[in-house]
Every structure is written in structure tokens, then in C-alpha cells.
């Protein structure tokens, strides 16, 4: 019975972290080019030229 009191909050917090991670990756533009991301891993170019969707900084 008592285990509920910490197990449920832990599971909710873990889920919430996942949700925040999704928010961050969405905001960071990681879903902007799904087709391109699939192709880019095939090339050994380490240049990161991402142009940020919400600002002017490049990374």
C-alpha cells in the first residue's frame, strides 16, 4: 500500500521527463526534416550547420 506513494510519483515524473524531452526536441527543430535526417547519417560530414528555427544561432 505504502509503495504507491512513491512509485506513482516516480512513474509520473519519468513520464514527464519524456514529455519535456519531446518538447525540447520539437522546439529544437529535430522533427523539421525527417527525410533528410535519415539520409544524413550515411555521410561522414561532421559539419553542423543547422539553422535554428526560432533564432539566429546555428546550434
Amino acid at each position, binding site marked *: 500500500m505504502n509503495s504507491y506513494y512513491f512509485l*506513482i510519483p516516480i512513474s*509520473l515524473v519519468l513520464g514527464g521527463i519524456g514529455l519535456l524531452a519531446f518538447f525540447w526536441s520539437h522546439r529544437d527543430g529535430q522533427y*523539421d*526534416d525527417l*527525410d533528410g535526417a535519415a539520409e544524413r547519417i550515411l*555521410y561522414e*560530414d561532421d559539419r553542423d*550547420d543547422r*539553422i535554428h528555427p526560432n533564432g539566429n544561432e546555428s546550434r
Partner: protein
Amino acid sequence: MTTVPYLPTEEEIRLASKSVGQGLRETVLSLPTIHCGGCIQRIERALHEHAGVERARVNLSTKRVTIQWRERSTPSFMIKLRDLGYDSHLFETETDRKDPMLGELIRSLAVAGFASMNIMFLSVAVWSGAEPEIRNLFHWISALIALPTLLYSGRVYYRSAWTALRHFRTNMDVPVSIGLTLAYALSFYDTLYGYHHAYFEAVTMLLFVLLIGRTLDYMMRERARSAVRGLARLVPRGAWVRDDDGREHYMPIASIVPGMKVMVAAGERLPVDGQVIMGISDLDCSVVSGESTPRTADTGDQLSAGMLNLTAPIVVVATSTADNSFLAEMVRLMEIAESGRSGYRRLADRAARFYAPVVHTAAALSFAGWVAATGDWHQSLTIAIAVLIITCPCALALAVPIVQVVAARRFFENGIMVKDGSAMERLSEIDGVVFDKTGTLTLGRLHLRDADEITPDCLSMAAALAAHSRHPQSVAIAAAAKGERPLLNAIREPPGLGLEADKDGHTYRLGRAAWALGKDDETGTVLACDGVLLQRFYFDDRLRPAAFDVLNNLRNQGLTTEIISGDGVAPVQDVALALGVSTAHANMLPGEKLAYLEAKRAAGHKVLMVGDGLNDAPALAAASVSMAPANAADVGRNAADFVFLRDSLIAVPTALKISRDSRRLIGQNFTIAAIYNVIALPVAIAGYVTPLIAAIVMALSSLMVVTNALRLGYESNLGNLWSPKKHYADGPLGHRLKGTS
């Protein structure tokens, strides 16, 4: 394509870019032909090595590249891209930023998904028979999760419902908002007093499913819209203006006022309406008026925006501002035409109009009935809310968008962009098709007739001359000639007349017969040597691939086919005869085309208009539904519901078939939703619906609707209807207008 490949000038690129600070400017280009990782690498590498480019990033999903370049450098990257073999078009910079609405929908969807899953875990425990203490605890946790979810994810619905109510209207979101709020309030009350059932998981799951439908619908529209925006523009964004001191400035079109002298180089389109004050040239008016043969413009002639200057630079004095020009007149006519179309009500809205009162009456009646029978207010209210939840338009909210998203994908695979879902619904209801001629039924490209019967010497001589001109007839001659061409020098192009060159002491002329032969009564296009006729040339416009089969197919489906064109009677009749169209109207002005379509509507017909020109734009807006090829004028493209990217007219029957299939599937989905309600409603009214049952039937009906929609992906395959082998047997360019036989 009616257009000569057109690259924006450096000034235009600068004008369309925007400053991003640190001495950098940003330009977004659409690259319609990129398709793989190799393209990304080649383009990015080339751009990085290009002088002045600071950063470049290709987006393969949207087929765009964002380039940041140093303000002081010359933006010449479009030439670089063309040399690499990629067509690029300037993309409107003010629209390239992430769409805030889509972001909000996706975040709302994520929150609703997170909440409904967590509450579902807790609810499963409750349904499996938890002790009252744990049950209450779980209900409280659920209530705590559901409240912020309802406020955050539900605001999309609350906002829309509030806007509707404030204007004394109602929409689908009003019953949704009421249902969600009531269900939450009652569940909260039950939690407070420790009752057995709470509907928190139903609230969040309902929200989740409804948001899926809404997000899909939005994404589909946005994708098509941005694909159309990425196509090449016909009219440039700015023009060179010469002021009174003789200095030249590059100005945005919006700031050109009447009286300014605008310089139009050969190969450019007129940015504004104007009168020629210097120079003689040939102008291609096909996009503006539908005429297939170019006209000569001399000093004093009045020209309208969008015409293509072919042979020599001219100076025009602007006679109207950009928002007062022929173009603006077209836009005004379009607005008038569109107001007539707004009478169309979407299928989902029609269903909601019928559905919402039934649901609300059922809920109210069961409440009244239970109060009368038992006198138990709480139980009556619980049952009434169970009725609301179980009938809430879950499957209904998915029934239309899910089918249309699958259909949009089918359209996309066939090279057709669809602006919104209602266009598909309207297309499935048509009873006739009206075509424009130049650029729609035909490719809008002149073609040399009977090239085989011309002696090779004459043809190669003519081609050698023609290679130096942009005139459509010259382009056609140059394209028809294969093999060696004599070398010529000192080629002159007297505007409006033709081309002239000397070789071995003889003067060769290609062009107007009256000029080349020196006789005023001669007409046509000829090649002459020292005034002696060598060869006459005849031209015709070629039909789009598969035009004949497409029109036959449409007629076999019982649709009427008609042509309305701004071109002369003879060329229109030729096309009508070749395609077996009995109703063909020539010399139609834009206003007449509009009136024609409005008369059709008044007579109760629902027609599809297919057109490409500026002069078609009002008619496109007036028709029940409209289609334009990708090379259409910008205004026409924006007015059309569908834009097809490939040359072939097969797009028309393809679109029709997909629309009709999706219409049928939507009908089936409505039936599924109705059957589900017929079964579920009596159970709910009888008071047997527990939250568990509500969750199961809601998920089941949604699943059935989605599965049914996915069938469209397999059913609409046109492989049997249009065997490419059979229909392309006559070569990729399709039928000729007048055969040699």
C-alpha cells in the same frame, strides 16, 4: 512550360532576403528536384565553397535550402545551383518560419497523449477491482493530471467554441467543449464524494483522439500550401526604374507609381501595366490573355503586367500602381467570385448540424426520464453525461480528416497538390469540366509542323539563326533541327521582324514574310536568302500528354467537356476538333469567363475549371472546384484548389477518381459511426455504461474508422485504368494537333 527558365537577378534575391544580424542575410530557396542524401551533400558542399555563403542547410522533407550569406557579397548562389543541375525558386521569407499553430497542436497532442496514457494505467487498476481507498487515491491523481491537460490541450476547442458563441453561431467545437467540461466536473464531484465511477480517462482520451483528427487535417493543408508557394513566380518582385536624372534604381514592385520609367530586359516579364515609350519588341501574352502567338509592341502600345518580353529591351512608363493593375483587377474579380462559392458547407459540418441536436436531445431526455423514474439527481446526471461521452463525435471527428489525409497522400504521389479537404468533397460532386486552351489543354509551347518535309539545309540554316532568339517560333525551330548548323556571325534581331545574318555574301532572313521577302502582302514565317523564299514554316501548339484520352475518359464518365479561351476562333476550333469537344468559346475576356461560370452555377451545374493563365484566375475562383498546372500564373495557382505538377492531363481523371473514392469511404465512415451510436446509445440511456465500456467502444469505433480510411491507399491505384504503356505509345509528348496523315 510557357516560361523561359528565369533566374531572379541579384537585386531581386537581395529584396526577397531578410537580415538575420551579424552582417548576414538569409534566403530560402525551394528545390523541387532534390530527392536523396547525395543531393543534400552536393548542394551543401557546393554552397559552402561558394564565396559569400556563411551557412547552408538543406531540408529534404520540405525540399528547401536555407542560405545565410554575407551582406556585402553578391548573392550568385542560384546560378551555382543551376550549374549543378538543380532548379531553384525564391521562397517567400515571411512565411518560412515555423508555423505557430502547428506547433501548438502538436504540443497539445503530446500533452493529451501523455495524460490519457497515465490515467489509463490508473483506470485499468480501478476497473480490475481496486479497494475503495486505492480507488479514491487513483481518482484524485487522475483528476490532478486531467485538469491541466484539459486547460492546456483543450484550449484549442474552448477558444474556437467561444469565438463561435460570441458571434451567436455554433460549431462542432461547442458540443465537444460542453461535453468535456461536464464530464470533468461530474467526475470531480464523484471523486470528492468517493463514488465508484469517474470519467477522467474518457475526457483525456476523447481530447487525444479529437486532436489527432485536427492535427492531421491541419498538416495536410499546410503541406500543400507550402508546396504551392515554393513554385516559381512569374512576375519578379522588383524592377529597374530610371529616374529623371537618368540614374537607375532597383525598386520593389509595390513602390512603383504611375509615371515611373521601368526598364524591361528581353526575357523578363512586365512588373506593372505600362505604355511603351522606347523600343520595339515581341511580347508573349499567353499567360495574360491566352493568345498563343506573340504580338509586336511598338512605342505607344499599352501592355499589362505579366507579359513576357521576348526580343529586345524596352522602356515602359507605368500607367498604374501594382495594386491598381490588370493583376489587381483579376484579384478583385476573384474575390467577387469566391464569395459565391462560400455557400458550400463541408461534409463534416453538415453531419455535425444533424448530429449535435440529436445527441443533446438524447442526453437531455435521458436525464429527464431518469429523474422522473427514480428521482435520483446524481444518477440521472451520470447517465446523461455517459450518453454525451459515448456519443461524442469521436469517430465522427476522425471520419473525414483521416480519409482526406490518406487521399492527400495519394494525390501527392500522383504529383497533385490539394489545398484543403473541402476541395476533394467538391470535386467528387462535379457534373462537367471546363478547360482553358493555351497552357492547359496545350503545353503553351509552339512546335514546328512537318519538320520532316523541310530540307535539312534550310532547317539547319534556320536553326542557326533561330538559336539566337527567345521568340517562341525561334525556340521551336531550334528544337526541331538536329545535327550540324552553319556558323554565322553578325546576327541582328530587328524587333518585331525576325533575325538576319550574312553568310558568303548573301543575306539570310528568318521571320515575318513581309519583311524577309520585301513584299507587303506576304504573311507567315519564312526563311529567305536575299529576298528569295527558301522555306515557309508553320507552327502549332501541342496538346498536353494524354489530352485526347483524358477528355474521352471524362465524357465516358458522363461529364460534359467544354473549352473557354481568350485565343482566336481558329486555334480554339483546331483544339476542339482534335479533342472531340463540341462546346468551345473563343475570344473570351476574363470577365466573360467569370460570367460564363457563374451562369453555369446559377443553372445548378457543378463544374471543374482547369486553367492556367492570369485571365483564368477569376474563373478558377468562380467554379465549384478548380485545377491549375504548376506552370500557371501565380494568381491562378493560388486561386486553384488543385495544382498538378506533371505535364500530363491524366491528373484530372486521377484527381476525380481519388476524390470519389474518398467520398465513398467518408460515407462508409459515417455509417460506421452511426451504427456504433445506434448500438451504444440505448445501452447508455439504459444506464449500463461504465467508464470501462465507454473507453472500449470509443477506441474500437475510432480504430474501425482509421482502418477503413487506410483502404484508400490500395483502392485508388489507377494502374488498371491508365496503363502507361498504352497511353504513352505515341511518345512522351503526346498527340500532335494536326497529324501529318
